[in-house]
């Protein structure tokens, strides 16, 4: 009888080509996703005169620098150069590229699953920390740096020491207005941004099983904000239904075999985790960040903490954050005026996110300007087919094309200095959305609520029909 194994154990074993004496494994990479930011990796490859080892397993996406408006005329020469460099590299190496005008273009972590490139049981690498997103399918997915990108390009393998296994269990049913984003911000606030460092997090429990694939992706996406390079959820019927008939998903007999193989990708009942943390879904409320780190998050009903009363180790950071954010200790979070909103990113730019925002915005007007950038061209088309774009534009918000956009501001979509933005993205770091920008992270529904009131707002009363 073999010892009980975790999902991590099973995925690791399935990809381990060899393990060195020092305990580091050489792993086979099933999918390598590259984007404009991968230029350092390609340059390293070229410097050695090497070719991409497995072009059929390597996919290029234009997303980080993708203009969200007037794509035919890129005026910024640096942005044009970044996109052209990716095109040149993709062409030279024979890679499928999802370019700006491609109906399948979008943010790398949105289109991977959408195109069925992401599947259970795969190892997915990308030079982007939010690669943990793909773990939502029961894949071993993790972000890598440029040297590692060059290594995967050259060898289709990656060296990695196996992380420790950690399980976050959430039991119960989420209340209306509470989403995967709130589960994530909740655990990161509880454990800290380094709370899961060195660990691969598996999410389990009835609240997780109850999430759609979109919600699971949001949760796994944010694992990195809690320090975990890997987030994962065992595949189940929800996973299979999402994937069936996706362009790159297996078909026919191969699909049947795949589903049978994937059904075994669960942690055995007696498997032990080096770390276990449990939450009750009933305790989770709509959550917003007040500081400059994702761990500085609280339920919308809370007050901004007083640095003198938080643990000494975190007091300096809290003081600095309040100063940067222009907030006063003791103020209620709710009612804090905002200047603008953004909905999009690989965290919350999927169709379900847009639906949740539209449900709040429907028949209402935004009091502040805002931008909505769908996670992919397909999400955009779907939203338009459902009339969501009309709801957004009638509310006074701008409906744009897909890309990383204001999540990171590389394409020029920026939040101005000192401006306060309610954002569905993943990082409230200083300057992330632009120099001096003040970012509050929250779910898309909460961003929509902030838009219609012009302030940080609890979405729940609005969902019950309260006038904004």
């Amino acid at each position, binding site marked *: 009888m073999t010892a009980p194994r975790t999902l991590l154990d099973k995925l690791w074993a*399935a990809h381990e*080509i*060899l393990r060195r004496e*020092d*305990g580091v494994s*050489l792993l*086979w990479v099933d*999918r390598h996703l590259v984007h404009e*930011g991968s*230029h*350092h990796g390609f*340059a390293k490859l070229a410097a050695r005169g090497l070719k991409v080892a497995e072009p*059929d397993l390597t996919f290029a996406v234009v997303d980080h620098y993708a203009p969200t408006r007037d794509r035919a005329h890129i005026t910024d020469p*640096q942005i044009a150069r970044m996109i052209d460099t990716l095109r040149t590299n993709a062409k030279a190496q024979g890679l*499928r590229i999802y370019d700006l005008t491609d109906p399948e273009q979008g943010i790398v972590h949105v289109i991977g699953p959408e*195109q*069925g490139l992401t*599947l259970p*049981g795969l190892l997915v690498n990308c*030079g982007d*920390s939010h690669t943990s997103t793909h773990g939502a399918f029961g894949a071993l997915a993790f*972000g*890598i*740096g*440029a*040297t*590692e990108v060059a*290594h995967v390009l*050259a*060898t*289709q*393998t990656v*060296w990695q020491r196996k*992380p420790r296994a950690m399980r976050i269990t959430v039991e119960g049913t989420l209340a209306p207005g509470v989403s995967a984003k709130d589960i994530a911000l909740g655990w990161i606030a509880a454990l*800290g*941004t*380094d709370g899961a*460092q060195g660990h691969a997090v598996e999410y389990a429990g009835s609240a997780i099983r109850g999430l759609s694939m979109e919600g699971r992706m949001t949760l796994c996406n944010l694992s990195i904000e809690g*320090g975990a*390079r890997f987030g994962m959820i065992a595949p189940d019927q929800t996973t299979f239904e999402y994937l069936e008939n996706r362009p*790159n998903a*297996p*078909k026919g007999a*191969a*699909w049947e*075999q*795949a589903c049978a*193989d994937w059904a075994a990708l669960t942690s055995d009942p007696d498997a032990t985790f080096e770390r276990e943390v449990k939450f009750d879904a009933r305790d989770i409320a709509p959550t917003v960040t007040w500081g400059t*780190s994702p761990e500085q998050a609280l339920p919308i009903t809370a007050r901004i903490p007083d640095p003198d009363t938080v643990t000494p*180790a975190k007091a*300096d*950071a809290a003081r*600095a954050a309040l100063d940067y954010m222009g907030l006063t200790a003791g103020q209620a979070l709710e009612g804090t005026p905002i200047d603008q909103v953004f909905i999009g990113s690989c965290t919350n730019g999927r169709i379900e996110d847009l639906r949740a925002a539209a449900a709040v915005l429907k028949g209402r007007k935004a009091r502040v300007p805002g931008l909505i950038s769908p996670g992919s061209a397909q999400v955009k088309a779907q939203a338009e087919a459902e009339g969501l774009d009309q709801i957004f534009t009638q509310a006074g918000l701008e409906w744009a094309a897909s890309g990383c956009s204001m999540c*990171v*501001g590389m394409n020029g979509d920026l939040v101005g200095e000192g401006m306060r933005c309610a954002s569905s993205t993943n*990082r409230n*770091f*200083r*300057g992330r959305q632009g*120099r001096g920008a003040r970012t509050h992270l929250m779910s898309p529904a909460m961003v929509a609520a902030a838009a219609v009131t012009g302030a940080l707002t609890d979405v729940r009363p609005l969902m019950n029909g309260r006038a904004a």
Partner: protein
Amino acid sequence: MAGWNTHEGPALCLPLANVDTDQLIPARFMSVPRAQGYGDYLLHDMRRDDTGGLRADFPLNQHPEVSILVTRRNFGSGSSREAAVYALVDAGIRAVIAPSFGDIFASNAVNNGLLPARVEPEACAKLEQALTTGPRPIRIDIDTRTLRLGDLTVPFTLDDSWATKLINGWDDIDLTRAHGDAITAFRDTRLRTAPWAWPAAH
């Protein structure tokens, strides 16, 4: 890349927690080719005012000669951008000492000859205290995993495989290509046992 096992140089304290890679190098500088050098962008928005001028009161600006940083928990968290490591290395930094590091940052660091030395929080506080009046030399020994500042000796932790890489200045691609047969054999088996792992539409 040249390997190293000891280094002695001036160390500066940066008493900040959660210095993420967006701080280490803001996204707008990441399109620069490496050959142009990234040192000027290190901690750009902290070090420089709106016009790009160096802030006189920022410690790193007063002591550009330092080669070691002592800082607080969760250094290098966030984005996987290796450019954050390039900015440190190109500014002459050889080691960062902190109680914890972002996982991807630490691995990027080792790939570029930069030591991420993890020390206990209490020991880090002692080093910080010893540096309150300004930079002082620290001697780093990777073989023994120790740091020495005056009479203070502090152990640090570093994965053995990373120590080997730093000391030898090894590049993984060469090491891996030596395993070419094992990789090919693995690929063949995977293609046979998990054909679904190849993209269908390709």
